[in-house]
């Protein structure tokens, strides 16, 4: 063997390449293996009981036109929820990023709470508040002399309202980021030449943030299309189906309509894929003239006494999205039959006793926390390497990997779970029905979230630091360990916490993949909603929130302590 051959082999088998291709292969298998099974089911027109399929065709897709109402409902709810979420997000972002409203920092923190609380909790609470007959708001309305009902949450607009309240925080984060990067001198110039605040907002602020808002709109719309929990809790009582809840119902019955459900899922995936492609195009186009070479410091406008009105708007949002749902669940959890005006004999703590005796609390909560910990820890390593592979390495096919990694973003998790169920049930290693399957599922569906979060920080680190170490003769592994990772620590900690929360609150993928020894909490709450009383379900949701809040407080304290350690 010549020296040049050895050199060539060394280059080929370098640690960098082995790690890069290894991680890429794992991610590709996680993502593409279930998608293959999903597509197979969608095009299967043979005997549904026989696998692998005996015949392929497009009948399942043409059959979808038998469900025009469901398609229309999906479009209606998604559009209405997107518009509402954008209004909430835009107004809150403008108030908190651009005005001197009192308590800005506190409200900025509180805006993240709906994301932690989950849309499921919001749906359960709003179901208790806004059902036409038994909803607390409607009971109070009638007690005050009103007739019939004041609100009906079991309609398309009711579903959209709750979805918007909880997705509003996502829209807020996206729009606020754009607003914060906007040069305030543009608005100041407008006011100097005599424009009113309203006119300035409409003629200057709004046009400047339009690309960002449009990007957020498409992203939120795609999220709404794949939304499941709210439509399930609020839509089913009134037979208001959207595509995701219809899919769920179709696979739950006997004989299951898996092929129709798969075709619905693939169609939804196609629409979401187009939406996210548009979103990426808008974001990549980078037509934000607000970020320039000129240095500026984001400054807030003094809105005078109006700031107290804006404070009222902030308080109202936090009240309806956080305080009211939590208070409602607490109120319902201590009653035998939840009513607005309970009698003395209606109060009870039995729901908490029952909840603690159920698997849902005994083991599911423990499993959820364990999975959250595992997903976050393994995910940060895997996704960190993927982010490095895609955005920093010069390895071939890194561009393709970006599309593969972002793929799960375009597939509703419930739909992805079908593919996973079939894929892993036939897999020779027996992980089906275990926590390992859920771990793989979580890592797969959260790939886009983790990679995007870490990439955001990674792209801010100047490449020259790594190159400098390389010039000094440091190997790839040494450079990653001593330069890249220490600089990435804040981003990795943020990604860890995000993945932890996302895993603990996960519903769509878990609901189909849970086994007898791998129950997790959010699907258990949904099962409780299906099979037990709303009071017991409220209790479970409260317990979940409390435990997750405690876990978060502990984790944030630990990560702050770790973050405070000096880096060598």
């Amino acid at each position, binding site marked *: 063997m010549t020296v040049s051959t050895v050199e060539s082999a060394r280059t080929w088998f370098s640690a960098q390449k082995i790690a890069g291709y290894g991680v890429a292969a794992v991610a590709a298998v996680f993502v593409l293996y279930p998608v293959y099974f999903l597509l197979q089911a969608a095009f299967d027109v043979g005997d549904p009981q026989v696998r692998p399929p005996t015949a392929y065709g497009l009948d399942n897709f043409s059959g979808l036109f038998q469900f025009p109402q469901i398609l229309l409902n999906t479009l209606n709810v998604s559009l209405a929820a997107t518009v509402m979420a954008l209004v909430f997000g835009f107004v809150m972002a403008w108030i908190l990023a651009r005005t001197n409203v009192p308590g800005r920092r506190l409200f900025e923190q509180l805006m993240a709470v709906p994301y932690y609380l989950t849309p499921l909790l919001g749906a359960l609470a709003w179901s208790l508040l806004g059902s036409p007959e*038994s909803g607390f708001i409607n009971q109070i309305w009638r007690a005050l002399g009103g007739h019939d009902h004041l609100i009906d949450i079991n309609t398309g607009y009711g579903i959209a309202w709750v979805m918007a309240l909880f997705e509003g925080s996502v829209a807020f984060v996206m729009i606020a980021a754009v607003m914060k990067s906007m040069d305030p001198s543009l608005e100041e110039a407008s006011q100097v030449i005599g424009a009113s605040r309203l006119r300035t907002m409409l003629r200057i602020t709004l046009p400047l943030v339009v690309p960002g808002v449009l990007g957020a709109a498409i992203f939120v719309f795609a999220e709404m299309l794949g939304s499941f929990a709210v439509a399930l809790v609020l839509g089913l009582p009134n037979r208001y189906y959207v595509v995701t809840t219809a899919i769920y119902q179709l696979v*739950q*019955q*006997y004989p299951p309509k898996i092929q129709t459900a798969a075709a619905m899922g693939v169609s939804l995936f196609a629409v979401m894929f187009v939406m996210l492609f548009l979103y990426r195009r808008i974001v990549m186009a980078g037509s934000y003239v607000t970020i320039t070479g000129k240095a500026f410091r984001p400054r807030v406008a003094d809105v005078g006494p109006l700031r107290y009105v804006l404070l009222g708007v902030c308080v109202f949002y936090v009240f309806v999205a956080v305080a009211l749902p939590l208070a409602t669940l607490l109120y319902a959890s201590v009653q035998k039959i939840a009513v607005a005006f309970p009698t003395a004999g*209606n109060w009870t703590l039995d729901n908490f006793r029952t909840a603690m005796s159920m698997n849902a609390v005994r083991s599911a909560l423990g499993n959820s926390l364990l999975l959250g910990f595992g997903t976050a820890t393994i995910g940060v390593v895997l996704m960190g390497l993927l982010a490095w592979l895609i955005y920093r390495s010069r390895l071939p096919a890194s561009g393709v990997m970006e599309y593969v990694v972002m793929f799960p973003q375009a597939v509703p998790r419930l739909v992805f779970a079908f593919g996973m169920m079939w894929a892993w049930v036939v897999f020779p290693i027996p992980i*089906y029905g275990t926590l390992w399957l859920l771990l793989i599922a979580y890592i797969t569906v959260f790939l886009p979230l983790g990679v995007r979060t870490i990439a955001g920080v990674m792209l801010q680190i100047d490449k020259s630091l790594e190159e400098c170490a390389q010039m000094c003769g440091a190997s790839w592994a040494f450079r990653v360990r001593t330069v890249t990772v220490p600089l990435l620590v804040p981003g990795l900690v943020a990604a860890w916490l995000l993945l932890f929360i996302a895993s603990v609150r996960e519903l769509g993928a878990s609901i189909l993949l849970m086994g007898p020894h791998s129950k997790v909490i959010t699907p258990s709450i949904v099962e409780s909603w*299906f*099979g037990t009383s709303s009071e017991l379900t409220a209790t479970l949701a409260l317990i979940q929130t409390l435990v997750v809040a405690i876990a978060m407080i502990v984790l944030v304290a630990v990560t702050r302590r770790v973050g405070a350690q000096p880096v060598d």
Partner: protein
Amino acid sequence: MAGIKNRNVTRRTLLKIGGAISAAPFVGFPAPGVLAQGQTKSPTKVLDFMTNADVAKAEQEGQLVFYCHENEPGTAGIVEGFHKDFPKINTSYVRAQTGALYNKILSERSAGRFDVDVIQLSDLAPAVDFQKKGGYEQYVSPESPAYKAEHLSSPVGSFFWTGVDPAGIAYNKAKVTPSEAPKTWQDILNPRWKGVISCKISASGLQFVQWYALRKLYGPGFWKEFAKQNPHAFDSRVQLFDRLAKGDDKITAIGEYPAYILFKEKGANVEFVAPPDGLVATPLIVGAVSKAPHPEAAKLFVDWAMSKRGQAWYQTNPNLYYGSVRTDAPPMPTGVRLSEFKLLYPADWDDYANQRDVFSKEWNGMLGL
């Protein structure tokens, strides 16, 4: 009207059962080692019931995996009862509606996964189908003679009726006066109940039985008229009564008696109506699964569930309140015996099973799916 024949356990019945057992290996069932053991080994007494299971081995297996159609507290209640009696055997479960559960177990078995020991379904049709597919372990419990032949699988040994879930009509007393309340099944078609009546989704075994039985009684037009009522459909009996108790629905077209007892105890203002043509009823089917990972625990569970002890647990647990079909069963917690109700079962179970697709299509169409 379809009713069940009141047949006593006679010597002839037992001989028939014995004959069926002996014939089993020759009619396509896998030669059951368990069965052979059941014939050669005399049953032993454990607690206060008889079993062919090796209790020491079952405890050594230390685990029982139970698939059940029942709601979460109900399923938890069943395994809790067994675990109380056999604390060395840990229990775990999966619960889902019968349709989803059956689909799950079929998918798993087609992929060579055998994770479940015992399954309970709320519909005889998938149970018979599962039996045809060789899904059940052939195990004849020494407690079998306490059951009539029609409450056991044919041939005996695959499954048995662990209880019956009867349903009539229920209404909210604050919203509906007794004089306004429906008295017969036809009364649920009264337009006054439009938009304020509930039923179950097509995945429910009991809903299938009701559709079949009332269609036989009143013709196919009955359910077409019912569809005009825009009923609200739900997964479980507790959801139906939860809404009824709160007034979200004024009446439910499928008020299950166990849920009625549960909600009465909670103080809900609800009332139960038993139509004169009878209560629709579905059997709750329990059987040990073939290739179970914990076969002795599975057999022990079947014996426990069939025994007086297990039946008492099923019949008195607030989240179950099943009516027992054991010939020597005591009355239900309300003091009523199941045999005092006039029950409507499908007269021809094969025809019933064949109608599943027709039902699913009609019911889903009615609900907008």
